[in-house]
């Protein structure tokens, strides 16, 4: 078996953070990959909720879209999109919101709206989707993002979903009641918010990754926690399961276009 790629490590590390039985509201893409990997390894009773209304989905392959038929077929129940946001997310049923973004900043604010100015953007991104409310209403959120200077920035161009805003207690001051982002997982490391300043601080490095690498790939003058953990390397089971899933997904999505 070839060694795990940085992207595979990121997915595997993220999956480990989801404990069995957790109710998890999953964004599409890598969050969905990580959540399903967790479900197929150490957390068989992880409950996956997608904003398309599928509760308890158990897809056999990664969905390409958040509303793939695979999600509905394998779910315990499928409710309207209205209901998923009102009764389930806003109703306080979700323990972990699992999000991606185009940019994350030093205080864990997320941008998925525009690069540049809102009224005349350099790049118009898809937009908020469910993220602002997932970020504000799940008990806590995990964020997963590729480690890149243009993605991990000092200040996001647009706060789509509030992290710790300007740091300190500014999130609480604005009336947001949940605890917010508890971890940012990248392909190099994990950040966690500093207990008081809420600045994202490196707490964990993936195997073989140096502080220098992290510094060079981060858009702010990055701080490291006093104690840094080294990520356990992927187990064979984790890597096998992930690659199997990727392979099945590849075949399934290639086939369905006929």
């Amino acid at each position, binding site marked *: 078996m070839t060694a795990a790629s940085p992207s595979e490590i990121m997915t595997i590390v993220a999956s480990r953070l989801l404990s069995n039985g957790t109710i998890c509201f999953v964004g599409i893409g890598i969050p969905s990959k990580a959540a399903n990997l967790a479900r197929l390894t150490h957390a068989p009773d992880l409950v996956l909720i997608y904003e398309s209304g599928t509760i308890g989905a158990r897809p056999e392959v990664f969905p390409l879209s958040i509303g793939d038929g695979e999600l509905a077929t394998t779910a315990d129940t499928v409710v309207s999109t209205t209901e998923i946001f009102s009764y389930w997310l806003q109703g306080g049923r979700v323990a972990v919101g699992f999000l991606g973004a185009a940019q994350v900043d030093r205080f864990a604010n997320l941008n998925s709206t525009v690069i540049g100015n809102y009224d005349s953007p350099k790049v*118009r991104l898809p937009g*908020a989707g469910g993220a602002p*409310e997932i970020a504000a209403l799940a008990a806590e959120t995990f964020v997963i993002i590729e480690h890149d200077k243009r993605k991990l920035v000092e200040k996001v161009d647009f706060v789509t979903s509030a992290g710790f*805003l300007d740091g300190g207690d500014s999130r609480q001051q*604005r009336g947001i009641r949940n605890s917010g982002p508890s971890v940012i997982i990248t392909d190099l490391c994990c950040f966690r918010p500093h207990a008081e300043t809420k600045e994202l601080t490196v707490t964990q490095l993936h195997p073989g990754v140096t502080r220098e690498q992290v510094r060079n790939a981060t858009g702010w003058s990055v701080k490291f926690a006093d104690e840094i953990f080294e990520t356990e390397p992927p187990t064979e089971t984790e890597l096998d399961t992930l690659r199997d899933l990727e392979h099945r997904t590849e075949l399934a999505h290639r086939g*369905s276009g006929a």
Partner: protein
Amino acid sequence: MSKYSPLADAIQTHISDGDCVALEGFTHLIPFAAGHEIIRQRIRDLTLVRMTPDLIYDQIIGMGCARKLIFSWGGNPGVGSLHRFRDAVENQYPNEIEIDERSHAAMAASYAAAASGLPFGLLRGFVGSDLLAHNPNLKSIDCPYTGERLATVPAIRPDVAIIHAQQADRVGNVHLWGIVGVQKEIALAAKRVIVTVEEIVDKLDAPPNACVIPAWVVTAISHVPRGAKPSYAHGYYERDNEFYRSWDAISRSRDKFSAWMNQHIMRESFETLHGEPML
């Protein structure tokens, strides 16, 4: 009292230039065929509404039919950007497009409010988000019991909602299942409702609490098998993920997009591309 008519007639009769139109579908049951008919009829100045504008909105925008978009997530799911949408927002091509941007939860609340005959929806929404600063429609009120500040969104009451469903009976009662998104809400929010269906059955065999839209809510209905292609219809056909992927390259260049639209939508029929002809 049949409400059935050919799709082209339904679109021509019930949609006019300048209308506010919502073609809904959360990845599933997206009314592509109806969207293509809007393009073919060169309807202009539309206010388009949708939680998840995707390829069909990229096409409608790219063909210059829209002047405004009310939405919460505009992308090619699992693939990336909508290039025609981006070109309109970033470069005002083929025309400037005004945007009213909300979150999914806020859009859903806007639809539910309209369906419920209320002028606004109430939610714990977008606190701390810059959306608030850029959309004057997003406001807030104080709870008369707890004093908490809560978010509000204005109801959205489109002139026309268009949805695609799996089945209807001969009277026009409509049954959809699987990921039903906000289709019932938008049908009840809109002034007029156009439905396209995969199949006409003698009797709906819907479970007691299924998502059924009674015929008397529907303005016009058309039998359009494969009318959701390249999205999917649960129980009928799967999502054409390859097409979604290929759209990225087609839509990236203005010329390629125009050529493709002319060939597949304007001149020939879309169905040559996606299988058996529509009735």
